[in-house]
C-alpha cells in the first residue's frame, strides 16, 4: 500500500511519451521529471523513493536490531552489450552490489541507483532494464530508495552506465575478512566458473559460435545467510567477478600470507565454457562471474557448509576446490588435470574487453 502523500505525487506525475532519450531528459525540466516518474519511481515503487526527497531516510532502530555494524559499498556497471543471455545490465547492477555487501556477511537492505544515459537510447530499453532491476531487487529482498539521472551527449557514454551503492547490516559475531585464511582451511565455490565471461563473449557475436551459455548473474545473499547459519565463523569470502577466481584466490593468499592449492580436477567448469576457452585460448580461471562466491572455511565445518550450499538453488553445484597450506606463502598453485603443477598468478592486462 502507498501512503496518501505518495498517491498525491503520483497524480501529479506525468508520462514519458518519447521513444528515445534526448538531452531534454537530463535538463532538470518537465521531460526529466516525467522520465523519472514514469520509468524509475513507478517501477521501483516504494515509500522511501516515492517521497522524492533529495535523500532516502530510514530509521536507525530497525538497522541496529539486525546487527552491530553497517556495510556500505558502490559499484558501476558498463557492460556491453546491455542485454545478454540470461541477464542485462540492470540485473547485473543489483546483483553486483547486493553480492558485494553479502560476501562481507552483511544483510543487504537499501540500494541507490545512478543512471548515466547516452542521448539516443531507446526509452523502451530503459524501461526493460529498470523492470529487470526491480525484479532482481525483489528476489534479493532489497529496495532501490534513491537515485540520480544524467543524460550525456552521443559519444560521451556507451548507451547506459549504471552506478548502484548499497547499505547492509552485519549481524553480531560475523567476522569475514580476507586476512583470516589459515593453513588447514578449505576453499569452497558455489558452482560452475566462467559462465558470465563466456556468455558476454558469445553475446557480442564476434565469434559466430553457437552456444547456450547463460550468465550466472544471481543474488547470493540468501545462500550466504544459510552458510552463516551452518557456520558463523566463515574466514574469508569474496564474489569472483572481473579477474575470475584466480584473482580472488591470489588476493586471499597474499593478504593472509598463505599458499592456496587449487585442484583442477575438482573445479566445476561447464563443458560449453571449456570448449569455448579451448577455441579462443582463454582460461576459465580468469573469466568473469556474476553469481559466484569463493569462501574459505575451517576444515571441520567444510562438509556442513557444503551440504547446506548444495540444498540452495544458488549453490547446487558447490564444490571444495582448494586447500590452504602454510607455504610457499602468498602463492596460488594449481594441480593440473594432467598431473603437473603451475603457479596461478593475477591476470595481467585484460583477457577480454569490458565484461561487467
Amino acid at each position, binding site marked *: 500500500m502507498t501512503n496518501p502523500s505518495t498517491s498525491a505525487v503520483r497524480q501529479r506525475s506525468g508520462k514519458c511519451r518519447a521513444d528515445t532519450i534526448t538531452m531534454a531528459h537530463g535538463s532538470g525540466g518537465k521531460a526529466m521529471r516525467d522520465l523519472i516518474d514514469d520509468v524509475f519511481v513507478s517501477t521501483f515503487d516504494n515509500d522511501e523513493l516515492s517521497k522524492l526527497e533529495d535523500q532516502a531516510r530510514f530509521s536507525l532502530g530497525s538497522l541496529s536490531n539486525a546487527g552491530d555494524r553497517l556495510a556500505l559499498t558502490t559499484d558501476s556497471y558498463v557492460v556491453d552489450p546491455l542485454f545478454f543471455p540470461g541477464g542485462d545490465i540492470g540485473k547485473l547492477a543489483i546483483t553486483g552490489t547486493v553480492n558485494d555487501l553479502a560476501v562481507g556477511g552483511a544483510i543487504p537492505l537499501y540500494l541507490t541507483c545512478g543512471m548515466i544515459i547516452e542521448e539516443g537510447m531507446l526509452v523502451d530499453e530503459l524501461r526493460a532494464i529498470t523492470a529487470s532491476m526491480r525484479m532482481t531487487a525483489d528476489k534479493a529482498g532489497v529496495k532501490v530508495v534513491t537515485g540520480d539521472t544524467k543524460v550525456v551527449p552521443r559519444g560521451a557514454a556507451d548507451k547506459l552506465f549504471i552506478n548502484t551503492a548499497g547499505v547492509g547490516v552485519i549481524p553480531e559475531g560475523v567476522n569475514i575478512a580476507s586476512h583470516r585464511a589459515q593453513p588447514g582451511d578449505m576453499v569452497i565455490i558455489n558452482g560452475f566458473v566462467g559462465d558470465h565471461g563466456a556468455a558476454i563473449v558469445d553475446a557480442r557475436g*564476434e*565469434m559466430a559460435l553457437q552456444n547456450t551459455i547463460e550468465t550466472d548473474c544471481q543474488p547470493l545473499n540468501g545462500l550466504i545467510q544459510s552458510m552463516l547459519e551452518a557456520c558463523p565463523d566463515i574466514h574469508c569470502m569474496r564474489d569472483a567477478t572481473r579477474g575470475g577466481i584466480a584473482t580472488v584466490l591470489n588476493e586471499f593468499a597474499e593478504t593472509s600470507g598463505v599458499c592456496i592449492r587449487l585442484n583442477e580436477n575438482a573445479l566445476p567448469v561447464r*563443458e560449453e565454457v*571449456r*570448449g569455448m576457452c*579451448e577455441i*579462443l*585460448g582463454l582460461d576459465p580461471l580468469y573469466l568473469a562471474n556474476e553469481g559466484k562466491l569463493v569462501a574459505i572455511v575451517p576444515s571441520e565445518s567444510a562438509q556442513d557448509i557444503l551440504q547446506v550450499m548444495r540444498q540452495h538453488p544458488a549453490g547446487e553445484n558447490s564444490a571444495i576446490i582448494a586447500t590452504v597450506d602454510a607455504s*610457499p606463502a602468498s*602463492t596460488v598453485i594449481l594441480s*593440473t*588435470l*594432467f*598431473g*603437473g*603443477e*603451475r*603457479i596461478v*598468478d593475477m591476470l*595481467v*592486462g585484460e583477457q577480454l*574487453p569490458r565484461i561487467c
Partner: protein
Amino acid sequence: MKYVDEFRDPDKARALVHEIESLAQQLDITRQRPLQLMEFCGGHTHTIFRYGIEQMLPDSIELVHGPGCPVCVLPMGRVDDCVALAERPNVIFTTFGDAMRVPGSRKSLLQAKADGADIRMVYSPLDALDLANNNPDKEVIFFALGFETTMPSTALTVLQAEQDNINNFSLFCNHITTVPTIKAILDSPDMQIDGFLAPGHVSMVVGERPFDFVAETYEKPIVVTGFEPLDILQSIWMLLKQLKENRHDVENQYARIVPADGNAAGLDALSKVFELREFFEWRGLGSIDHSGVKMRDDYAQYDAERKFSVPNLKIADPKSCQCGEVLKGTIRPWECKVFGTQCTTETPMGALMVSTEGACAAYYNFGNLDELLNKRNQKSQLSAASA
C-alpha cells in the same frame, strides 16, 4: 570433453614420464650435461607451462623455448609502421588480439587505440574483409602475421577480395617462415641443442619434408609434435629414443593432423599471393635471409606497404635485453639481466615477455618469480666469484 581429454590423461602421462626417465638415464650426454631439447613453437611453450610439463621431467632434460611466437619476434620498427598506418585518417586497422600489446618505440597498438586510432581486434582475416565490405568509404588494413600456419588464410582472403572486387582492403604483411629460422639457430656458434620438437600447425601446411635438412645436414633428431600435453611427452620420448639408437630422423608424432606432404590447396594459395623477401628483421635474432614473405607484384594493390607509405625505420632492440641468447638456448629466460625487474609482462621490454606464448612471459606468469630471481642472483654471484 571428447577428443581433448584423451590427450590429457594423467595415468598415461605418468607412464610416459617413467619411460622418458629411464631412457634419459641410458644416454651418454646426460652424464656430462643436461640434454637440451628445443620446442620451436610458442603453442608448445604455452602447453608446457600450462600443464606443468617441465616439472614432470627429470632434471637431465632441459626444454629450450624457441622463437616460434610470431608476436614476440616482431621488431619494433614494424610495430611503429603499424601504428603509423593505424593513425592515418580514414583507416580501420585490424589485428589479432595479442599483437595489440607489443611495444613499439613510441607506443603499442593498444596505446594508439586509446589515443583515438580506429583499431579493431579480429579473429580471422575474413572478419577484416567483411569490415571493408561494410565500410566502403574507409580503408581497412589487416595486420597479417604468423608463420606458415596463418599464411593460407591471409592468402585466401586476398584472393577472395580480388574475386569480390573489394578495393578498400589491404594487408600489412609480416608473415615469417620457419625453416630459415631453425637454420639460423642451428648455425649459431654457441648452439647446444640435441633435438627439436617441430611445430605441428606449421607442418600441417608445409608437411614433414621441409625439416629433412635438420636430420640430414645437421644430424639432429626432429619430431613433428601436436599441442596436447601427451603429444609433447610422446614427442620427447621419441626424440630420446632416436638419441639412444643414434638416429637422426624426421618423425611425425602428429600424424592425426599432419600429412607428410602438407596441405596442397593451402600451399597453392600462399605461393600464388606471396614470395620470399630477401631478408626479414627479427626481434632478438636480427636479420635472417629469406625468413619473411611479401606480396607478389600481381597483388600490389592489396599491399599496404605499397598502397600507403610506411616509415619503415629500423629500431634497435633495447641493449639490456638478452632475447637472442634466450631464443638460442644459451641462457634460460630468468638468467636475463632484466627478467622480472625492468622487463615484466606489464611493461615488456623484450620480445619474449610480450605474448603469453613467449618463453619469458611463460616463466613470469607460471613460475615462482622469487625463486627464479634468487637462482639468477646466486648464479651471477658464482660467476663473479670465479672471475
